[in-house]
């Protein structure tokens, strides 16, 4: 059932990195996205913003959401900003259902999450 997961890091400009996520974010693929982000952030200290391109995310279950929370911590926790671009309706529904939309999307980095970190 698993469609696998491919995550690709691509610098957009000097201070912005894009990450394309293609496939299912779920229990079976947990860790792939987080490892990529942590590795690349360590190698690119100049990156101030990370834009996840969520347009090609297929299925996202609770483990996938947990992964996004960890990515958020890794990015925002080091003083950067995280954006979830191109969210498809399914992902938006999940973020709204779980009450994590404000926390995970760009706006959250301005208010609650920064106060927390």
């Amino acid at each position, binding site marked *: 059932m698993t469609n696998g997961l491919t995550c690709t890091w691509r610098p957009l400009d000097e201070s912005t990195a894009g990450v394309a996520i293609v496939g299912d974010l779920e229990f079976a693929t947990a860790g792939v996205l987080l490892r990529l982000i942590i590795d690349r952030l360590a190698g690119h200290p100049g990156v101030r913003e990370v834009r996840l391109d969520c347009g090609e995310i297929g299925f996202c279950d609770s483990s996938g959401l947990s992964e996004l929370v960890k990515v958020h911590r890794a990015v925002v926790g080091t003083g950067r900003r995280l954006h979830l671009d191109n969210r498809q309706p399914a992902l938006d529904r999940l973020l709204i259902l779980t009450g994590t939309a404000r926390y995970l999307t760009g706006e959250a980095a301005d208010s*609650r999450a920064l106060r927390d970190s």
Partner: protein
Amino acid sequence: MADRARTARATPVDGGREWAAAPIAALVADGSGVIRSLNEAARLLFPAAEPGRPLAGTVADWLAAAHGPDGVARGEVGAQSFAAHPIPHGDAVTWWLVDETDARSAREALAREQERTAFLSDASAALLGSLNLERCMEVAARLAAEHLADAALVLAPTHGGTFPAVTCVRGGEPTRSRLEIDPDELPGLGEALQGFPPVPSRWLDPDAAPRWVLPAGFGPVGSIVVTPLPGHGVPAGALVLLRRGDRESFTDQEELFARLFAARAGAAMSAARVFALQASITDTLMRELLPPTLEQLGGVEFAGRYRPARDGERIGGDFYDVHSAITADSGESLAVLGDVCGKGLDAAVLTGKIRTTLRALLPMAGDHHRLLDLLNRTLGHNEDARFVTLVLASARREGATVRLRVTSAGHPPPLIVRADGRVEEADTRGSLIGVLPEIESVSADVTLNPGETCLLYTDGIVEARGGPLGDAMFGEERLHQAVAECASMPADAVVERVQMLASQWIGRGTHDDMAVLAITAPRGQHLAAVGGHGRGRYTA
């Protein structure tokens, strides 16, 4: 000298001094079987043999019978074995008798070793075929009785004062028992059971053996050997071997062999014991994590069903609980259904924590938001970003109806099935618990009339993949349809039907944990005042 003696010669050799002193026995006999001459070695071997006397009666019978020019004859003289090589010359034959005793015993020893190795290998396979200690002891006793002795007694270390034991007489069936004994009555057994390494096997006076050692009707014992069964770091037990009076006692080799067998039996028993211990620990821990059996509480029907993601496991990340009113006057029960992210044992352990925490927070059950907030702080910010989504439902019976206060924390909203088959989503929402600095929640008030049900479910149900092509999700629509058909059903029938439909949908495919909990207002029940005071009680 020796070289010449080994060289076959076509002429009679019956005079030379060298021949007479040859270390290999040789004798010459003519065609009619009369000895013509023999050397010193042959004289030592056959004292009665003399030139001029017949072979028959003076040399070994097998040699006399074999006399002739054809082929090598083999036989024994006293304790020695010989190969007799005939060298014909004219009508006479010279017999050279080559001593083969060492070679033969080596061959026999080799065959015996091969047999034992094969037995030990078979024994290991038989012993390791089961991780059940009792079965393992039976196999050990049977093998020992068949191959090592006339009867065998296998004892496991004491368990609550008695010793699990298996006895087997050769050719019989192993019998199990629990012996209430003092092992020190049999010298060496106490030490063997305590596993003093290495305890040598001990020869025992059979008359000194206590009666419990002997199988019923075994008869007089000739010899007894006690061998420890060494385990993995801890003693696995002891093996007692018995032989009848008319059989010779154990040789050093047999005793060594018994010890080799004991090492294998001990290892197998030890593995079975460790396995049993692990299984009982797992069982005990798992019992705490299993979902409870639900029943009617305070006039409200509750029923739950749970299926873990991995077949063969009984626990996972989904859970439900129903707590009865903690304060005497509230009469309000709290139902909880939740889903911890992840699967398997890790998820189950966090599930256990959350269920315990919720139990401790029950006094706050009147205020769902406060309860969730406290739970969020308790779990808060764990390293691996594990969270839980859950639904709280406080239920109170009022007359024929059930009043519900429902709060979702990042969880799919519960479904309300009306008596006429309409399906509504409870108007509640809230954020998940465990990773956010602050949570929000909005509760919904719901009234259930008799026969109406509020169904709490985890996303394992709607996300169950299956169907005709095996890749479609069960989905919300199918769930709505399924519960619509459950109008006016008892709670237990509702959860059974939903779980069954989802399971059928999945077929053999994979799935996440699936849990459902139904809260139903019972149909056709009456308020029965008890003792004429208080709020009364509802009977099923």
